[in-house]
């Protein structure tokens, strides 16, 4: 394989990986802090994608302008969902919480299928492309990658620097101690789930720019979040970033050499191997089961 082709494949992988990192950052936050596997994450992304497409086709709202409003709508919905429903069972075993979020996901998935028809749709921006010799990079993908990386970095900054972020990290470390320090844990849980849903929302808006939006993709997106979380390690933003980029490049190379189905298989195989060899992930720390 010549160098230009290799560079093209790796760069495609990095552009895909940035989106995976952004998807997994929200999922990992919810899992790490609430100890809840958010089976809704894939459907939330697709819901945001549909909203973005509708805003574009009905009112000509530019997807980059729609990014934050769509994210806020989903974030608010997520926070309410957590506060009203999931908080009630949040301390129960994984079987209960996972089954509950799966049940909620079935409802959302079914409603989306009924409201939006299943034909894939996307926002076509056509911003031209950047070329270096034989390597061609479409500008819309580059922009989506930059925004995805920027949002992931922003989440990291919020968790490290803001009062809310410190409260979230405190709850993750020790719920009882955090309560004694005056942190209202149920409210932090709601805000954390809301933050996760916000991340899903912005990812959905970005997804609509670069890939067709269809409910068929919800399971695949959730699967990517699983893999990135396990590969990168749970509950850390840098872990999600490393895992996302690693998965993106692995899939891109795998797809180039063995075909797309084999590439999807490769991702899951990578995850199973890591689960056994290093259950805390590449950058993870022990202690968040």
């Amino acid at each position, binding site marked *: 394989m010549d160098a230009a082709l290799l560079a093209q494949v790796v760069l495609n992988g990095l552009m895909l990986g940035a989106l995976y990192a952004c998807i997994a950052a929200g999922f990992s936050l919810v*899992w790490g802090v609430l*100890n809840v*596997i958010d089976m809704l994450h894939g459907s939330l992304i697709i819901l945001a994608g549909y909203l973005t497409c509708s805003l574009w086709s009905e009112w000509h709202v530019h997807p980059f302008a729609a990014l934050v409003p769509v994210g806020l709508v989903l974030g608010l919905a997520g926070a309410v969902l957590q506060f009203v*429903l999931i908080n*009630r*069972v949040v301390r129960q*075993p*994984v*079987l*209960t919480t*996972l*089954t*509950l979020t*799966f*049940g*909620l*996901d*079935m*409802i959302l*998935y*079914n*409603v989306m299928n*009924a409201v939006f028809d299943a034909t894939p749709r996307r926002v076509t921006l056509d911003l031209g492309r950047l070329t270096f010799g034989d390597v061609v990079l479409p500008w819309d993908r580059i922009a989506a990658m930059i925004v995805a990386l920027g949002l992931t970095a922003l989440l990291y900054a919020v968790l490290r620097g803001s009062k809310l972020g410190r409260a979230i990290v405190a709850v993750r470390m020790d719920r009882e101690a955090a309560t004694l320090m005056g942190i209202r844990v149920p409210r932090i849980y709601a805000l954390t789930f809301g933050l996760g849903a916000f991340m899903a929302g912005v990812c959905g808006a970005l997804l609509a720019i670069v890939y067709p939006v269809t409910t068929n993709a919800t*399971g695949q997106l959730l*699967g990517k979040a*699983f893999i990135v979380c*396990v590969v990168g390690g749970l509950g850390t933003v840098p872990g999600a970033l490393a895992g996302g980029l690693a998965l993106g490049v692995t899939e891109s190379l795998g797809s180039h050499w063995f075909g797309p*189905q*084999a590439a*999807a*298989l490769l991702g*899951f*195989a990578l*995850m*199973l191997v890591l*689960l*056994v060899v290093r*259950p805390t992930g590449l950058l993870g720390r022990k202690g968040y*089961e």
Partner: protein
Amino acid sequence: MRAWTLPVLAAWIAVLAATPFVGDNYLVKIATFVAFYAALALSWNFIGGLAGYPSFATAAFVGLGSYAGALVQNAGAPIVVAWIAAAGVCAMAAAALGAIVLRLRGHYFAIGSIALVEILSLVASWWSGLTGGGEGLNLAFLPGGPDTIARVFLYAMLGIAVLALVTTVAVTRGRLGFGLRCIAQNEDAAEMVGIPTTRYKMAAFVLSAVFCGAAGAAYASWVAYIAPSDAFSILLTVKVPVMVLLGGAGTVLGPVLGATALVLLEETVWARFLEFHQAILGAVIVALIFFLPGGLLGLAARRRTA
């Protein structure tokens, strides 16, 4: 086990077995589905109910069993041989995959078990030389009229369910059942008092796969066509634990009760709203978790103590 467990189970078997004599083929079809899901729910109960491991691997073994059975049957073997072979393949696969995923606990085990479904589904669509890929596999229909076929598959499924039931009774009364309950409560403590946790978990996982394999193979022969997306259905992998939770996890009667209730509910109530099938199941799950956390049997127990 409560005193009325065995009479209720005997009555359940008798009612299902009597359906061909009292009703039409539609009723027999429902009875076959009840037996099919009861076999799957009883299987899940070994690992999920008794050992308390949140397994979502049911569809992996149902799918594997249906493909293994279909391939053996298409190679010319009698169908019963194909079903037994499918059960054997699933037992071996569960032993091999269990060695990987049973090292995990809690959330990681749940994710690992879902990954098994995804991986086997991807393999089935990828390895098209063997499995027919996305186009699926066709199986020969059985000779005989629709009445005969309906009866054959009813009694086959019922037979598998009864085998799973007998195994469940034997396990819950023996050392294995005791050990698995200890693991569910506190695995480290169980290990410390000398329960061979690794071996017991493996036994539970293999038991949870064997009957799924046989039931999956019988299902494939029944519908005479399988494809990756139906065989390895994520919906099925959640529906089966939900049935057990609905009945009462870790009990003998619970899985049977839950599977029967959900299939009947599905056929009578929400078969009329096909468009919203999935949403209604989702709503049932949400209601189950908030209003019926101990399942139907838990409800009976609560009423008695009250």
